């Protein structure tokens, strides 16, 4: 119970009025940059570093902590409302969230996402308080072979997204894999599809792909059909609605919150692709469960679970990632890397010795993570209704605004004009895909998991000098592959049974 005493001490520092003010400022700033695509919380921390030099270390860390979570609360807002996720961690939330917004339930989707972020973050931070010393053990269990098994597992787990039309799904998946091949190969240094352009050496940013497909693609598609539709003005959806969940909605959302959190928790510790993998796993799970329930809303009007799961997963990952940063000195995301640098500026060296050496700084920081989550929830819930009013803006203005935000956001990533051309080109691809009803999600899934699977497979094989047995050389890999095989077998059996029953019904109807 030493941790509890230390944590209470931390709270007493973090609750000083001036520190609460920093916390509030950080939360607002973090949310603001999170909302804007292209400006991640890494950028926010970077820009604020000079400002925080004027503060004492505790004040600075408290501000960083609230920026860190603020970005995660903010990034799904734009995704839900405008289909322009502020960060790759919000992509999975965007799928169902934007559907809900179009159905006139924008405030509800935003509220769900805020609550999800709060629940995920709180549980994860609690886990960090009590389990920080054991995080190192989890991190040390994962080598290249385990990462590859994990990536393969994630592919299978979310394959249900692809399953509606196999050909179209695989087309989209292939397209995503193709996009990720662009760039210098990490393992050999060979250039792939760069056409000698240095701007392509680091590949195409996932933000460019996401905004191109989801935002620009949508704008162009709507533009191309504008004369065919009767109402030329009009709005995207009726805004309004309450952001607060009612009893029945809680019953739907709560299990999804918890499922999402349990996906997110372990992923923060292992430096594998940040929070995208767990958010997609959560999305895939909710989708699968919706199919089993025969929920008609999922994928059409938007289901609350599809927002709740991924959002909780994203923030749970962020919570334990903070633990990994503090207890192991492992930065598992760009923001974490930035904060690592910031901690070092103040002479606090995250790592196995941190809790002994800088206890006076760490505990207020952890306490402020909790306070930050509360403040963000309080800020975001009432604001959800205001945000949702955005959709009241007539569609043509709104779409012009989306285009501007997407273009500026992409330019802000690396000040590269080539990225803007790529954004437009991918937008056109998005139009074509919409026209031929090719699903967009598999492109993004492949773009995130593809490179992960490739690098880790090659690393594993390089270490073993090409001996494939290394891939099943540890208990973790064996368990993952076994679960995967079981899942595939079960779904195949179900498929067959359904097919047989359908056939029987058809015979019976005759």
């Amino acid at each position, binding site marked *: 119970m030493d941790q509890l005493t230390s944590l209470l001490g931390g709270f007493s520092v973090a609750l000083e009025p001036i520190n609460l003010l920093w916390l509030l400022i950080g939360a607002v700033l973090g949310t603001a940059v999170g909302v804007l695509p292209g400006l991640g919380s890494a950028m926010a921390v970077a820009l604020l570093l000079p400002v925080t030099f004027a503060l004492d270390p505790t004040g600075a860390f408290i501000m960083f902590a609230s920026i860190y979570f603020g970005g995660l609360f903010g990034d799904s807002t734009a995704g839900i409302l405008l289909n322009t996720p502020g960060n790759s961690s919000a992509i999975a939330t965007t799928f169902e969230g934007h559907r809900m917004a179009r159905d006139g339930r924008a405030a509800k989707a935003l509220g769900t996402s805020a609550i999800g972020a709060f629940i995920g973050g709180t549980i994860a931070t609690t886990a960090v308080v009590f389990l920080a010393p054991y995080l190192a053990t989890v991190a040390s269990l994962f080598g290249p072979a385990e990462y590859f098994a994990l990536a393969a597992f994630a592919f299978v787990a979310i394959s249900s997204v692809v399953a509606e039309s196999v050909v179209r799904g695989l087309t989209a998946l292939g397209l995503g894999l193709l996009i990720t091949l662009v760039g210098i190969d990490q393992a050999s240094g060979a250039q792939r599809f760069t056409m000698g352009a240095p701007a392509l050496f680091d590949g195409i940013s996932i933000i460019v792909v996401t905004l191109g497909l989801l935002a620009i693609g949508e704008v162009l598609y709507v533009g191309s059909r504008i004369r065919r539709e009767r109402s030329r003005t009009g709005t995207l959806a009726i805004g309004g609605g309450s952001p607060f969940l009612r009893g029945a909605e809680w019953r739907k959302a709560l299990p999804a919150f918890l499922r999402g959190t349990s996906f997110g928790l372990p992923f923060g510790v292992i*430096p594998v692709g940040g929070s995208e993998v767990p958010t997609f796993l959560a999305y895939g799970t909710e989708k699968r469960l919706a199919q089993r329930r025969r929920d008609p809303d999922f994928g059409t009007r938007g289901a609350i679970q599809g927002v709740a799961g991924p959002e909780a997963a994203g923030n749970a990952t962020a919570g334990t990632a903070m633990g990994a940063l503090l207890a192991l000195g492992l930065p598992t995301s760009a923001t974490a890397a930035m904060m690592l640098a910031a901690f070092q500026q103040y002479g606090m060296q995250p790592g196995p010795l941190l809790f002994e050496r800088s206890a006076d700084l760490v505990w207020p920081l952890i306490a402020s993570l909790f306070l930050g989550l509360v403040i963000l929830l309080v800020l975001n819930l009432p604001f959800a209704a205001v945000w949702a009013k*955005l959709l009241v803006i007539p569609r043509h*203005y709104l779409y012009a605004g989306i285009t501007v935000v997407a273009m500026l956001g992409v330019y802000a990533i*690396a000040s*590269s004009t080539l990225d803007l051309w790529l954004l437009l080109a991918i937008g056109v691809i998005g139009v074509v895909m919409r026209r031929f009803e090719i699903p967009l999600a598999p492109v993004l899934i492949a773009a995130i998991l593809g490179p992960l699977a490739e690098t880790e497979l090659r690393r594993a094989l390089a270490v073993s000098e090409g001996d494939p047995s290394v891939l099943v050389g540890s208990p973790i890999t064996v368990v993952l592959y076994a679960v995967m095989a079981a899942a595939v077998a079960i779904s195949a059996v179900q498929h067959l049974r359904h097919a047989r029953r359908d056939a029987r019904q058809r015979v019976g109807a005759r």
Partner: protein
Amino acid sequence: MRRRIPLILFSAASAAVFGLAAVDASGGGAGATPRTALTLVAPAAPGGGWDAFAREAQQVIRDEGASSTVQVVNVPGAAGTIGLGQVAQMGDRHDIMLVTGTVMIGGVAMATSGETLEHTTPIARIADDYAVLVVPADSPYETLDDFVAAWQEDPGGTAIAGGSLGGIDHLVAGLAGAEVGIDPRDVNYIAYPGGGEVVSSMLSNSAAAGISGLNEFRDQIEVGNIRALAVSAEEPQEGLGIPTFREAGVDVAMSNWRGLVAPPDISDETRAELIAIVEEMQASDAWRATLDRNNWTDSMLVGDEFGAFLEAESTRIETIIEELGL
């Protein structure tokens, strides 16, 4: 009126992005000198090593009053060569400096196309740190000799994890291999995007050994999770408790240096002014503290001396990269 609120919010948000995106378009005003406005280009994303260096320098230059407004602009990509390309095309802009270092020379050598550091004006080499060779705590290798013996026996089976290809970690692995009679092409080098990942690969026993910056490993070495075998410094490092490669009998030395260069066509006066700014920074107490905190070694070298060093370093690194077969 209520309907307008979201519209106003939305426009404010757009204005904020625009302001940030326009950052690198600003600061080009005529009549200004580097003393009034200075831009440091960090050719890496926020959180990267060069970004940290740029922000440390920004802080000290401003606090010492060497220049009144200093901003950092990130131009990430391709081992810094994207940033290099931009600065090399800035002609005679007098208020800009690019952060550079060992990794950029490797990046230029590997890209074989695009701009090189010859198209910039050398200002100063400022600080160094070193790479260190480590093994997991339960590894059978206690000294560099143990490791080298096993490595010579089976180069392929002795995988070495390190930072990205062509970076200092990779170069040190290649040089050390060549020095102990292993064809650099046979070195089984596993590239990770950064030092943090190398640390976790050591903790998970993924590779036989790892090479990365000393800072990344320091705490893990201290608690005994990993063991340091040799450091790539030229001179013995007092108080570190890790022998240099040379002391341990392998003739390899390489430093990971950081420095600043300016656009190619600046006037001699501007160059002298930029050098003076850097010298004021380097002489300050605040910079001493910065060096200590980051475990950087002071390696100040300015103007033409730095230019000569750049040339020699480029030739050396190009040769290694060729031998490594990249």
